[in-house]
Each structure stands twice: as C-alpha cells, then as structure tokens.
C-alpha cells in the first residue's frame, strides 16, 4: 500500500504491506504536485518489497533533487537501491527530432558527395605518389604482404574464374546459335564467342568475380584494422597507409588480373566449343578453324588492358572504402558493400570510356 499526504512544503509517502509491481496500481501523483517539494518516505509497516516497486518509486521521484528526499527507516536494501538510482541526476539530452527542410537536405547531400569525390581524387593521388616512392625504392611495405595478397587473388581465384567463364562461354554459344540458326549461319557462333570473350566478356566477368571476392576482402580487412585502431598506429609510426596497405594489394591485383583475363578468355572459348560440338553438331575442326580465323590480336590486347584497368579500379575501391570505414561493426559491413558496388559501377564507366577511346583511335 502507498498513501500520500501533502503537509505545507512536504509530500509524505507512507509505504506499508507488500510492495511489488501490483501495489501501486491506481496510485497516481502528478509531477506538478512534487515540484519544489520535500519528499519524505516513511516506513509504515513494510512487509516485503522487490525491485519493481523501487523502479516505480524511481520513476515518480526522478525529477526531484536527491537532497530534497528523506527516507525514514526503510528496509536497508530498498533505501540503498533507490538512492543509488537517484544519486546522479538524469542527463537532459538536447537532441531535437526536428526535420531539416527539403532543400537543406538536398544541399547537404550534394556537399557531402562533393566532399567524398574530393576524398576519392586525393586517395588516387596518394596512391600514385606511393607508386612513385616504390619505384624509387623508398616506400615502406613488406614484400610478404605482397606475396600473401598475390596468392589470395591469383592462384586461389583460378577455379572460380575458370568455372564462371566456362559457363558464360556456354551460354553465349547457346543463345548465339539459337539466333544464327534461323539464318543457317551457326558456324559463326565460333566467331561470336571468340570476339565476345577476348574483347570484353572475359575481362568483365573476371572483374565482377574479383570485385566480389578480392575487393570485398580488402575493404573488410582494412576496415577492421580501422576499427582496431591499427590504422592510427600506422599513422603515428609515420608509415603511409597507402604505402603499407594499398601498394601491395594494388600491385597484386594489377599483376594477377591480366593472367586471370587470359584464363577467362580461354575457358570461355572452351565453353563455346563444348556447347557447339555437343549440342549444335558443329565439327570440332570447323570450330577451331573459325576460332583461329576470327581471333584478333588487337581485340585480345584491348581485353587484357580492360583487365588491368579493372584490377586497378577494384583495388582502389576496396582500399578506399576500407580506409574510410567508420569505427563500429556495422560500418565494416557498409564499407564492404560500398567497395563492391562502386567497383562494379566504375568498371562499367571505365568500359564505356575505353570503348569510346578505341572508337576515336580507330582500334
């Protein structure tokens, strides 16, 4: 039971009986009644109590300064618990839930984008500087890191790249032959697959696989280092993070990408061959003859060039989002997602630019 009575400046709470979550049902005291008042808590025969009741008292009294509250012969634990909760006044949080006007938000977002773009350009510049330092032999980076990342993004990616490229060749041959059959020109499937794979598809497929596989891992690794303050440690040691973290990763990808693209080209053509010989009844010798006929060294080199550019884009995106990762578990996830998404977007943009350039140069 709980009774209150107001005597001049003092509100007296008389507590008695069993005090638990149920005992304050129907009891109500408004905040206005307690403002500027002294509170006296009197034990008028408490039989037992639990934390639920103390919680309720805390809720009622939390706006009252603790020096205005006196407790008289309350059970020992109860009094202590209540005053433990009341001893530090509640911090008033001044976070407004006010929504920003629409134009403010648009403008703020535009400024944010511009800032991020500036950051990205600066990052690329830093990477180029690191490269120059490395060429002069002044960059601080461990060759062990390079070999480790190289094995991670080279040999260990061979299987998945082969598998996917084989399937892409297969599909390209199937869909192509389906259409060419109507003209009775099925044999040109060989040319379609060869030109398609060597010029662009090999590089694109490898790029997407490597963005998901290696770009994501770069972002997650470096992002976790950021969370663990390892990047701060590098900074205070005066070691450039682009030298130490980005260079080995970028070099490893730049080296392995053309080789993977080469493999992808070959596996794609193999997949096309498999489909044509087994399903479209084209003789193997014919397929090989047409493949060799339509193989063009320029296309092949343009494909490899795509691969190198994609490798650079993937490494930059992975490292950039890793380095600019926030400091909690969530932000590592965000950094990884962004690394993959931006890598793929920039690969497509780069493909467009390279195609335009080739067109202009007449390649």
């Amino acid at each position: 039971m709980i009774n209150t009575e107001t005597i001049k400046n003092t509100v007296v709470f008389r507590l008695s009986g069993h005090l638990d979550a149920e005992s304050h049902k129907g009891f109500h005291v408004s905040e206005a009644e307690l403002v500027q008042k002294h509170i006296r808590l009197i034990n008028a025969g408490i039989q037992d109590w639990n934390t639920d009741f103390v919680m309720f008292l805390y809720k009622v009294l939390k706006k009252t300064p603790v020096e205005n509250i006196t407790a008289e012969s309350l059970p020992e634990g109860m009094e202590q618990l209540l005053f433990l909760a009341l001893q530090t006044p509640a911090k008033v949080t001044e976070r407004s839930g006010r929504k920003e006007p629409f134009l403010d938000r648009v403008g703020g977002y535009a400024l944010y984008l511009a800032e991020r773009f500036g950051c990205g350009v600066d990052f690329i510049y830093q990477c180029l500087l690191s490269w120059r330092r490395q060429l002069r032999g002044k960059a601080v980076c461990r060759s062990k890191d390079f070999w480790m990342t190289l094995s991670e993004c080279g040999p260990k990616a061979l299987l998945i790249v082969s598998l996917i490229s084989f399937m892409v060749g297969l599909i390209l041959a199937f869909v192509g032959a389906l259409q060419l059959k109507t003209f009775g020109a099925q044999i040109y499937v060989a040319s379609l697959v060869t030109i398609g794979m060597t010029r662009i598809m090999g590089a694109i497929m490898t790029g997407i696989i490597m963005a998901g596989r290696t770009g994501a891992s770069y972002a997650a690794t470096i992002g976790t280092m950021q969370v663990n303050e390892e990047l701060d440690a590098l900074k205070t040691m005066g070691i450039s993070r682009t030298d130490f973290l980005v260079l080995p990763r970028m070099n490893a990808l730049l080296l392995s990408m053309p080789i993977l693209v080469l493999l992808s080209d070959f596996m794609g053509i193999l997949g096309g061959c498999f489909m044509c010989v087994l399903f479209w009844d084209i003789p193997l010798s014919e397929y090989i003859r047409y493949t060799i006929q339509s193989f063009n060294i320029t296309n092949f080199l343009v494909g490899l060039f795509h691969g190198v550019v994609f490798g650079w884009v993937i490494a930059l995106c992975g490292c950039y989002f890793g380095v600019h990762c926030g400091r909690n578990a969530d932000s590592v996830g965000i950094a990884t997602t962004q690394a993959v998404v931006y890598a793929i977007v920039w690969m497509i943009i780069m493909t467009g630019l390279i195609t335009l350039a080739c067109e202009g140069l007449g390649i």
Partner: protein
Amino acid sequence: MTEPIIRVKNLDIGYGDKTVMSHLTFDVQKGDIFIIMGGSGCGKSTLLRTMIGLIPAQTGSIFIGDTDIVTASEKQKIEIMKNSGVLYQSGALFSSMSLAENVALPIQQYTNFSAAKIRDIVAFKLALVGLAGFEDYYPYEISGGMQKRAGLARALALDPQIVYFDEPSAGLDPISSKNLDDLILQINKSLGTTIIVVTHELPSIFAIGKNSIFLDSTLKTISAKGNPRQLLQNPPNKKVYEFLTRGDSYEKRAQ
C-alpha cells in the same frame, strides 16, 4: 551464508589438449563478492569463460544452483545464463545499438513485458549505474568508463543472482576504477547479488573482496583461498605474498 550458490569440484580447464589449470575446487557463497586473482596469463579468464559456459571444461563439475553446467544441455545452460549477467572486459556493447537498445535486448528476449515497461526498466538500470538520461547515446559516443557501466546495466537487466566481471578496472583511471568498485559494493549490498570478479588490480581486490582464490601459474592450481586482507596478514606461501604486496620480499616481511 548457508548454501553455496556455486560449487566447483575437481575442475580441469584449458583449450583443446592443453590444460591451463587443474584440480580446481572451491565454493562461492550466496551474496559473496568472490575474487579470482592471479598473474597475467595464468588462466583467470579461462576459468571465468568455463564457468559461464563459453568453453567446455576438460573434467570436473561446476554446480550453479543444482545444475552442473559442464554436463548441462543447451536449454539448461540458457536457464542458468538467464540468472547471471556478465560484464566483459571491454564492455562488449553492441556498437550499432543505442544504450537503451543494448540494455533492453535481454529483457525483450526473455520476457513478455510491454514496450513501456521495458522502457521503465531500462531507465532504472541505467540510473543505477549513474547513466540516467543516456538512453539514446551510442557506445562510441561515451567514454570507456561509461561503456563499462552501461555493460553493467545490461548485465543487471534481468535482475540476475550472479554477476561475473572480467577485469572490471582494466583501462580505467583510478577514480573511475574506484567508482566502479563502489558500484559493485552497492549493487551487492542492495540487491544481494553474488558477484564474481576476475582481476589482478590490488586496490580493487582489497576494496571489494570478501573471499578469493589465488591461481598459481607454476603449480597450475589454486594455491590460496580466503579473504584477501587475511591472506595478506597470514600469507600461506611466498607467491601470494609477493602478489598482494607488488613484489615485497617474503623473507624480509615484518615479523
């Protein structure tokens, strides 16, 4: 001080084939503040992690109430852990959740309370640890000491009977560390919670410890038991004395 709440018998702990500590036998009384002390790397934290069921024991038993956590099923383990709270060394707050959400998580998991009631409980628990009004803050916005106290609020969320502390004063300044010790004492006194603390901080050990065990890394077992102050007065062996006095010579001690 009648029935012990935790009874550990002939416990061997370690990782895989490697045994870190063996033949551990001790009781923890209800309402005690029990210190597990010992040098760095001696297996204090391993013992704690075994007691809360994070790593399996090699042999022996740990009775918490009437259940042996070594042989308990997953269901029984959850029942036991509902009655205990753990404050991890770095707080282990979920960084993507506000303090209120962190404290509310176990309550939402194990009770059917209404949102309003959970809000009241969270406000009360945060007030208990001196963080009233910090509901909407995120762990990275508050200091290390505050993170520990928020972790304690989360550990206390379900009104546990036992609260485990892993190195509570690690990384805190002396004042924050003392405040946390006071808080441990106050919670022990007002809620009657049994408290088990893994630490090697001497001021904390003497300030809060009612009972303790000392883990000896060379003997690989318990080499002393009892109230830390009494252990200091009547040291049972050289290593305990040196530990409790920060390396004073055992032979030259005041007669």
